[in-house]
């Protein structure tokens, strides 16, 4: 019964993605299609494929957002060298735990469970949920930027 409901939701969101006029709503419906597909895979017992589907959905939505930004006409701000150095330093700091605490060896944080086992056997559902959270954040950023762009367009039209 749940599979039928998810399948119905999948087709409805696919139709909405095609027929909705506003671009942001279409992209939202496409994200819904990806989520429904991932749920369908997970319910069918293919959690690994569901994780792949969510990751691909996030990538597609992010690339759609990036291409939308590229298509809009606005001047690009130059990044200062201090900012670049700061970001590089942040990346170096974030990589320190991976350098000093090897997560692949089982004897650091987990006594008997290796990283692969904990990722695929224990934390599969958690990883799917994290994917949904990232997808929601990407959609939120997309909607906020779209509204800002709309406001700017109204302002430039008024002048």
């Amino acid at each position: 019964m749940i599979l039928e409901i998810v399948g119905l939701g999948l087709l409805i969101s696919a139709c909405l993605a095609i027929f909705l006029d506003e671009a942001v709503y279409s992209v939202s419906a496409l994200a819904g299609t990806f989520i429904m597909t991932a749920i369908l895979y997970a319910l069918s017992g293919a959690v690994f494929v569901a994780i792949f589907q969510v990751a691909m959905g996030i990538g597609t939505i992010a690339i759609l957002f990036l291409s939308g930004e590229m298509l809009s006409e606005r001047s690009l701000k130059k990044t200062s060298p201090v900012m670049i150095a700061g970001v590089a330093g942040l990346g170096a700091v974030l990589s320190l735990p991976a350098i000093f605490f090897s997560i692949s060896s089982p004897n650091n944080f987990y006594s008997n469970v290796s990283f692969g086992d904990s990722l695929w056997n224990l934390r599969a559902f958690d990883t799917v949920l994290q994917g949904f959270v990232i997808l929601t954040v990407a959609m939120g950023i997309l909607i906020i930027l779209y509204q800002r762009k709309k406001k700017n367009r109204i302002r430039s039209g008024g002048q």
Partner: protein
Amino acid sequence: MDFVILSIAMLGIGIYGLLTKRHLLKVFISIELIATAATLNFVMLAASMTNYVRETLLILAFSTETAITAVVLAMMVIVSKKYGTNDVSKIIQHIKEDEEESEVN
């Protein structure tokens, strides 16, 4: 639930959108739906295969879908930048005008 029928329905929606919609974003969404339908079919087909063939099939399906997304988006951005519009019919009109100009020259 018959997943083949579900994927055929999604394929139909995608083809309908590809044939009727004129906006580049809608064309992209239609192609995504077609690719998702194909992947759904592959995933459900893989359930009846041996382990290695199944994994190979899935990796092939997902990488193909990602490649389709990347190529279509890149083409969309290039065409939109070149002709300054997102309407497919206007882009075709621009291409015809360019061809006519090149024939005259």
